[in-house]
């Protein structure tokens, strides 16, 4: 720190910042909408949680900066931040009584004002708001002065309780199917947790966490301490358990969650492919959806029983053609872009993706692939006489696809070709001077990547039984790219983690509706700031990040 900064100034800044965030959350309508959504029935709504999140977070963070012994100062800071956070909201409330703000800001409705003033008049409501915010700030700051022994269990308990409440819709469905509606009613009410259940859950989790602190030894330590031979045995056992879980997963998850897992699986498949192109070979591809589309359309044309389909092929017979079509497209795209670098490549591939989508949607190709009306009546895959109709059945097709793709990725990464890609990614010119044929190496990356995507697209078409051009928009490319980076570029398990976070999570949070993409965007930023290397980074990504830290560490004194 340069000079000793005025603490008050900092607090003022973060207090107001917190207030502005709370104000923004309110003004864009999140508070209003989510106040209809109970977290704990009758006690806490999601809207309230959102409103209080920013003062709580800021109060806690500011308190962390203040020394541990100075707890009075810390609590005061929390209080101060809480009060400051309320001020922008109160200004909003006062203005809204004078002007009809709703004609400008659609979300500043009467409901919102009522929420902010706790259904009281402006004066009383404002005072209440200040008090509540101050209380929230105080408690949050107070958390910091609690010994970690207690703080940790409380955090765990809160995370679990809020988590269960947030996902209560999906969870209650599962609970119902396993244990019947009686239990469900005890635990959940509509889409919220029952207050009693929330308390029990909190106490339970906090208790377990507290108890666990005394018993640090984990399974991993236990295995590590075994002699090598036994260690191998245990590893095999765990591998076996893992495979078993993968096999019975649809039974545990039920229809809807299997459907979600299937969607995640298709993205994993695409992610594995793009991971080869971007993660291994370092070729930034923003038009990756094109190959997905080509795989899907090939499947559709070959198998559809409708007017446009050839219909002579079964799903399995068509599959190789789909992959082959995508691979050829990958090579065809690869050739003109071979000499382009970095961002030139990015925009050209983006263009390619758009070209494919527009062509699919165009009147020009309508006689062949249906134009805007898409292709219908694509049969689902079948084995013998069993049509794999249910998500829980299709799951296995996707699982096998993912496993094969992951295996190929893994083998290639550690092979001579993998080294070629890595070298090319590090320094294209030098790689060429090492005798690496850039043309072949790049085309192979494009082709294999496209192949996985085509496979994914083929399954997608068959799963959906009908495809339309607008399913193949730029957003998919962006999504796949984001997920491999969030998971950790170049990392195979990272693709799975990334897909789970960026595809699975939003799917489960469907009820956030139009705020889904806002939160998605915010999440991308936060995740990249917090974990620029991704959630499960590959070795090389760790190394690169290490270089990044080395180069920046100088400035963070």
């Amino acid at each position, binding site marked *: 720190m340069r000079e000793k900064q005025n603490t008050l100034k900092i607090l003022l800044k973060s207090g107001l910042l917190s207030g502005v965030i709370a104000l923004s959350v309110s003004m*864009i309508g999140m508070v209003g909408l989510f106040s209809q959504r109970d977290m704990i029935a009758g006690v806490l709504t999601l809207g309230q949680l959102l409103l209080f999140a920013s003062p709580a977070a800021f109060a806690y963070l500011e308190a962390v900066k203040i020394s541990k012994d100075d707890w009075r100062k810390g609590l005061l800071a929390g209080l101060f931040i809480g009060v400051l956070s309320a001020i922008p909201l109160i200004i909003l409330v006062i203005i809204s009584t004078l002007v009809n703000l709703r004609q400008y800001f659609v979300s500043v409705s009467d409901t919102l004002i009522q929420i902010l003033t706790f259904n009281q008049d402006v004066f009383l409501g404002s005072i209440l708001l200040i008090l509540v915010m101050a209380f929230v700030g105080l408690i949050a700051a107070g958390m910091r002065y609690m010994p970690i022994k207690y703080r940790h269990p409380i955090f765990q308990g809160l995370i679990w309780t809020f988590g269960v409440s947030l996902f209560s819709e999906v969870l209650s469905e599962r609970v119902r199917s396993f244990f019947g509606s009686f239990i469900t009613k005890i635990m959940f009410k509509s889409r919220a947790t029952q207050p009693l259940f929330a308390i029990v859950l909190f106490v339970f989790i906090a208790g377990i966490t507290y108890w666990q602190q005394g018993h640090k030894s984990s399974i991993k330590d236990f295995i590590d301490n075994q002699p090598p031979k036994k260690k191998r045995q245990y590893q095999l056992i765990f591998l076996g358990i893992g495979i078993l879980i993968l096999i019975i997963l649809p039974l545990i998850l039920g229809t809807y969650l299997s459907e979600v897992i299937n969607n995640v699986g298709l993205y994993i498949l695409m992610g594995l492919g793009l991971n080869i192109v971007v993660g291994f070979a370092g070729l930034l591809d923003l038009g990756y959806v094109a190959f997905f589309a080509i795989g899907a359309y090939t499947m559709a044309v070959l198998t559809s029983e409708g007017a446009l389909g050839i219909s002579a092929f079964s799903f399995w017979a068509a599959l190789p053609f789909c992959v082959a079509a995508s691979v050829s497209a990958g090579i065809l795209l690869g050739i003109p872009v071979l000499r382009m670098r970095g961002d030139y490549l990015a*925009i050209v591939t983006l263009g390619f993706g758009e070209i494919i989508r527009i062509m699919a949607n165009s009147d*020009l190709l309508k006689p062949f692939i249906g134009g805007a009306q898409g292709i219908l009546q694509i049969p689902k895959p079948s084995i013998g006489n069993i049509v794999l109709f249910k998500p829980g059945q299709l799951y296995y097709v996707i699982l096998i696809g993912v496993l094969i793709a992951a295996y190929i990725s893994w083998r290639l990464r550690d092979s001579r070709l993998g080294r070629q890609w890595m070298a090319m990614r590090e320094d294209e010119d030098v790689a060429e001077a090492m005798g690496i044929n850039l043309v072949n190496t790049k085309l192979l990356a494009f082709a294999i990547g496209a192949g996985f995507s085509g496979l994914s697209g083929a399954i997608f078409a068959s799963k959906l039984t009908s495809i339309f051009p607008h399913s193949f928009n730029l957003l998919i490319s962006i999504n796949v790219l*984001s997920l491999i980076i969030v998971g950790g570029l170049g990392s195979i398990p990272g693709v799975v983690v990334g897909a789970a976070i960026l595809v699975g999570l939003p799917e489960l949070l469907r009820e956030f509706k139009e705020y889904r993409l806002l939160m998605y965007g915010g999440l991308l930023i936060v995740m990249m700031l917090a974990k620029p290397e991704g959630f499960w980074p590959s070795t090389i990504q760790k190394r690169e990040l290490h270089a990044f830290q080395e180069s920046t560490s100088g400035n963070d004194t």
Partner: protein
Amino acid sequence: MRQRFQDIDYLGVVLWLLRTGIIILVIWGSVATIIQNPYSSKTWMDFIVFGVAQGSLYALIAIGYTLVYGVLFMINFAHSEFFMSGIFTATILLANPMKASGFLDSHPFVGLGLITITAIIVSVAIALLTERVAYRPLRKAPRLVPLITAIGASFFWQYFFRGLFGSEVKPFPQIEGLIGKIPFLGTEILINQVVVIVVAIIMLIGLYIFVMKTKIGKSIRAVAEDKDTAALMGIDVDRAISITFAMGAAMAGIAGVLYAMVFRQVHFFMGFIPGIKAFTAAVLGGIGSIPGAAVGGFFLGMFESVGPSLFLQGLGIPAPHQLKDVIAFTMLVLVLIFRPQGILGERLAEKKA
């Protein structure tokens, strides 16, 4: 034998075929169109004017991409949202209330000035905030990381403004004095298109002079080349980068006003497509180069406007205008095959070893 096969430049052959193929198609289509002669020369002139007007918008937005790319070597995906945020806010908070109160009709140019200033302020504020929060902490991170935060920021701002002002298409009032047409080279062009073209050209030239001649402009160029050395000259690198973002965003803000003037409606999603087009234009012209962005923008506008009618109509393709983006992107590929660095970009290829 193997040796001999290796000696053949397959790649060259394929690229040659591709180039030739596209060029033959273009020429064939154009000749066929010209023979069919479906349009009068006036219509062709119209196409060109439409293309130039649209192109100047692309150029103004492309400046932002190119400036930021020149300095940080990152694709600022959120730039399209800088474009949207300014005019969207100004329309809701200023233009429509002013229209309703009659102020805009009585003082059209004062009103337009206020709208422009508001749009610029909001665009710049959003840009600076984005830079500070989402890009600055990651300046030395691997390159794809800020790309992802930029995508995140783009989504965030889109839906933030949607939440703030709603998802409806909002009208932008017609400005008195900018209605009507004036004769030009045998055709008539809309006054607002003239304004767009003139303003865009003035802004582009002004910006170019600013960057090339002023001390701040030169310091930005210095930062673009080498941040550490620039700091050793006494240049505040963070500030220079902020200024770069602010300049780009200001251009986007102005582009937003021009867009609204011409198309007279705004929407939270309005930035997306112009953003992608402008980015394409920036690359087409040679990313990092200001004149390149301008040239790329005008070229792209022309391709989109003239292309479908000239190249495709003669080939008997149904609904050719649906394929204008195909033309735009194909042209991009074609240009980049000939000149991998874009029309006015610096030669990267020879620098490599």
